[in-house]
């Protein structure tokens, strides 16, 4: 191959960090491997997968992950498009200001964002309870991270705060690439305001939004940092996602084989989501 020296090193890096470990994971998932006994590894077939698929804890983690992914991505997409429209309509200097502010949550390490919200949502000393009580929205302080439904809502809220701006920036780039002539032509046909948004803006934004949706959904399916920092999967396992469960199987139960199987199932789920989106994208591109 001509000039292979240009692309082969990059391919080697991806092979070393992605392909090789995934192959290793397939092997360990078919064996019984314990972290504290590295020497022994009897072949057990698909037993690790069977154990996972038969466990209530695994399906609970799948449900939590699904709930988190669907809710957070839907909110981020809706609010992101809204924020993009706000930025798009604001004049030059104001737009730069809002865009700069929108980059702040994105630039924060997720761990830092998680701890920031843990403090704001603190049941006794948090500013969220203080504000809500003094505004009369709630009568007594809520234990945000101590009750299942509230804890999941808190995690979703923190994720929406952190990643809506990212969706907004992508949507804004999409908005800016729409030719103004489209709206002028549309207004002749009576498409103004809400009708113009539904019939002109949204269809033209579709490619950009689908790409944002693809990356956000895959990210949501593999959520780890926020859950780890905010609840460690609690209370009572009610916010445990598949990534957190995999981590626990590896470092608490020390079961390498089953952790590999869980990691592969998570990867398969992310891959399936991506395939669906890519198919829709390609179909959208062809039409």
């Amino acid at each position, binding site marked *: *191959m001509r*000039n292979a*020296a*240009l692309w082969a*090193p*990059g*391919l080697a*890096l*991806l092979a*070393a*960090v*992605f392909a*090789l*470990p*995934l192959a*290793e*994971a397939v092997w*360990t998932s078919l064996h019984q491997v314990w972290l504290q006994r590295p020497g022994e590894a009897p072949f057990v077939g698909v037993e690790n997968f069977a154990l996972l698929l038969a466990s209530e804890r695994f399906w609970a983690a799948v449900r939590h992950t699904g709930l988190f992914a669907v809710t957070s991505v839907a909110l981020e997409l809706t609010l992101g498009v809204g924020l993009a429209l*706000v*930025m798009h309509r604001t004049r030059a200097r*104001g737009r730069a200001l809002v*865009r*700069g*502010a*929108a*980059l*702040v*949550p*994105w*630039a*924060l*390490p997720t*761990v*830092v964002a998680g*701890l*920031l*919200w843990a*403090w*704001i949502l*603190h049941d*006794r*000393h948090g500013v969220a309870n203080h504000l809500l009580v*003094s505004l009369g929205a709630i009568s007594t302080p809520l234990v945000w991270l101590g009750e299942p439904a509230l804890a999941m809502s808190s995690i979703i809220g923190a994720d929406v*705060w952190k990643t809506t701006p*990212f969706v907004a*920036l*992508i949507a804004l780039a999409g908005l800016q690439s729409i030719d103004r002539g489209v709206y002028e032509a549309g207004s002749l046909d009576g498409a103004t305001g809400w009708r113009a948004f539904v019939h002109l803006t949204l269809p033209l934004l579709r490619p950009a939004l689908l790409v*944002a949706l693809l*990356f956000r959904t*895959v990210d949501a399916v*593999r959520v*780890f940092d926020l859950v780890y920092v905010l609840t460690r999967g609690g209370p009572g396992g009610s916010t445990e996602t598949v*990534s957190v469960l*995999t*981590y626990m199987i*590896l470092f608490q139960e020390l079961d390498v084989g089953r952790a*590999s199987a869980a*990691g592969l199932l998570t*990867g398969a789920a992310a*891959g399936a989501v991506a395939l669906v989106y890519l198919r829709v994208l390609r179909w959208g591109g062809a039409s």
Partner: protein
Amino acid sequence: MKRLALPLVALILCTAPVLWQLRTALTPTDELYRVPQAWLPARPTLDHLAAVFATRPFGRNLLNSAIVATGAAVLALALAAPGAYAASTLRLRGGRLLLGAALAAALVPPISLVTPLFRILNRLGGLNTYAGLIVPHAALAFPVALWVLAAYFRGLPRELREAAEVDGCSAAGALWRVLLPASAPGLATAGILAFIASWNEFLLALTLAGADRVQTVTVAIAFFPGIEEFPWGEIAAASVIVTVPVVVVVLLLQRRIVSGLTAGALGG
């Protein structure tokens, strides 16, 4: 005034939680636990900022993060620049293969890699070493770097490359002597995005490099909370220290970062 209401709300929603953390970092502990809390500290203090460095190896954590993130960004750029050149300007088959592999890699959940990478690095003696974290971080940052650079190279004038060929440069020579010098802004964007991705990464840093001497800032902060007490002032102080440099860079270069993000997200 009405036109300004929504942008103002957006501005406050994005920044207020971070400003609250800054306020917490400057508030003495006894005031933090007073109910109700005051909006601003009555006696502002730098105690938490000092305690972070005096009672914890946080300086070392910062150094570790800087070393890992710099290493990861440099390695990602060194491999992504020629790759992007092969994929965009030269349109080599191998280059297109690399673009496809990068897309597939970007979709792999890091949790799927944790268990096998832990085992592989354990065998190679690479756990709790800089290299053992730099290489995976570089690979995680590689796809976006590749897309950003490919998009940038595509935007360069065709004459640039043709001039290099007339001068009798090899492909590598044209990249090194003509394309790269003209691509400083693209390289800076890709490098900063890779640096931030590594600086902010938690899962692999936690599992592959948890030991004190290589521990990065995100892992250190996550372990600030003890069994009994949560040192909220110190957590806020450390968060501010970790966040300020990144936010300053991002705000200074916001135009480039936004175009890089969009290029990255839209697959170049």
